[in-house]
């Protein structure tokens, strides 16, 4: 697990050189804690969907990452997925957080699965499908995860548009006749 370890700056530089325009933005944030003010580095990167899988492959080649979770935002026209990876765990204060954000247009909210590279992504990918209404292409298990089977189709709880929960909970008092 301890190959030649790169600093966050080196990671960003390498990725920018390799994928140039596919990296929309990359920020390194460091947050100090405790009396000694040791820092934890985080890389926040916005990338283009096209290079997404290649970048995940790069991370795996460097050091098999831990995928903590995929979180998501409904940004209006787009749905943003943020993949929270960490690398370099196992060395004292050496861990780097990698937050990779991909925006998918609502007209075609599709992204490739990464289950073939990181099998542990399955649960969180299934959750994103049912809660944000994105389509994970080639996902090994397409079923729902948390929502019950009789939950209405095409309603996604974390959406903020007409596909959200509004109409479901606002009219709870209305009884079907």
């Amino acid at each position, binding site marked *: *697990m301890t190959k030649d370890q790169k600093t966050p700056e080196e990671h960003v530089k390498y990725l920018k050189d390799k994928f140039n325009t596919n990296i929309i933005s990359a920020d390194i*944030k460091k*947050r*100090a*804690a*405790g*009396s*000694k003010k*040791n*820092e*934890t580095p*985080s890389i*926040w990167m916005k990338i283009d969907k096209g290079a997404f899988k290649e970048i995940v492959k790069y991370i795996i080649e460097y050091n*098999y990452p*831990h*995928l*903590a*979770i995929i*979180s*998501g*935002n409904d940004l209006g026209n787009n749905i943003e997925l*943020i993949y*929270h990876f*960490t690398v*370099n*765990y*196992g*060395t*004292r*204060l*050496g*861990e780097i*957080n990698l*937050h990779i954000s991909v925006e998918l247009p609502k007209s075609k909210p599709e992204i490739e699965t990464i289950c073939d590279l*990181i*099998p*542990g*992504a*399955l*649960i*969180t990918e299934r959750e994103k499908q049912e809660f944000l209404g994105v389509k994970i292409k080639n996902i090994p298990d397409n079923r*729902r*995860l*948390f*929502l*019950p089977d009789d939950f209405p189709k095409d309603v996604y*709880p*974390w959406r903020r548009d007409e596909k959200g*929960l509004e109409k479901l909970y606002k009219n709870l008092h209305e009884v079907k006749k």
Partner: protein
Amino acid sequence: MSPEATTKTTYHVPIGPIHPALKEPVFFEFEISGERIIDIDVKLGHVHRAVEWASRKRNPIQILYLAERICGICSYCHPAAFTLAIEAAADIEVAERAEYLRVIQGELERITSHILWAGVAAHEIGFDTVLFLTWEIRERAMDLTEYLCGNRVTKGIMTIGGIRRDITKDMLPRIQKDLKYFKDNFGKLAHIFLDDKTIKMRSQGAGILTKENALKLCAVGPTTRASGIKKDLRADTSYFAYGDLDIDYITPEALTGEVNGDVYDRIIQRLLEVKQSIELIEQCVDKMPAGDIVSEPKIAKVLAQLKKANGEGVGRHEAPRGEVIHYVKLTGEDAPFTWKVRAPTYNNILPWIPMLKGEQIADIPIVAASTDPCMSCTNRVAIVNNGQRSLLNKEQLHRLSVEKTRRLMH
């Protein structure tokens, strides 16, 4: 035998949503051949309460208390991770003394949780005397929690920018007395769990999670460390006062010299972590700097600052069961735009599959419990045999497990 029974070689056994290990719902469907488990399917969501969605109508201080109610055992780590996320998103300073107090609370929660788990594990294999012993020790930890927080379960101790209660000088003797009590009893517990022949027979070689599987399935916490992966946020990153403290990775190697990734290793792992937690609390008590316990005591001011903040942040804390991660996005409104919660059990679900494959039905309770799931549990098991349903309730499944232990003892 009917012709049907001779042609069909495997059966499907649904277990849950109310299940064998702890008293929470998750649904398993086991494909079995005789006594062996061939395949497992897990279904979740029976207690999905949409807390993330509920946060849309709450401000960050209100969410702290909502986060606290996600889980009764992790009632400190969820607000802790949420606070870390908010502090990162809005760049809020934290009082130095509070960083140490936060570690003390976190480690006390770990002691309480791991000892509770040790009792449940003993109960699952039929050692109820050990259950009562561990719960006596846990009671002391709960009393100490009450002494430090004013509450036993929902502690209400975390706040943005610091912590809500100080530990004053006159409180230290009580803490030291209790830590000594934990240390003394730790030896007793370690002896029971690590030297008992029957516990070894039930747990060694059972529910193996290989290092490769733990890595690929993104397992967290004691579950992954017991498989030999050095992954512990307290050592990996600098948050709270962990960056200042002397802390090292613990894997079962420290005791046995080898890693098998079985249930026995997960028992060792948690016991060693209890010892580590006691030492960390001692370090904090020694090193704690004097000063304020919160950077901004006026909550209205904090909320006003958060209302102006724009940004996103991630908070990660090593909870008793592993990494808990919260993501927060602030967009200059009362409520955060997004709040995503991920508890450790979420990542420890997939590892159940390789752990349980090839095991016996009687091993389900102890193997499922060995990851310390925070939402599992079986009241009732239905066995579909030859098209006829027969029901096994929780007590019968538990009895199967106890009987296996008894068989091994003779």
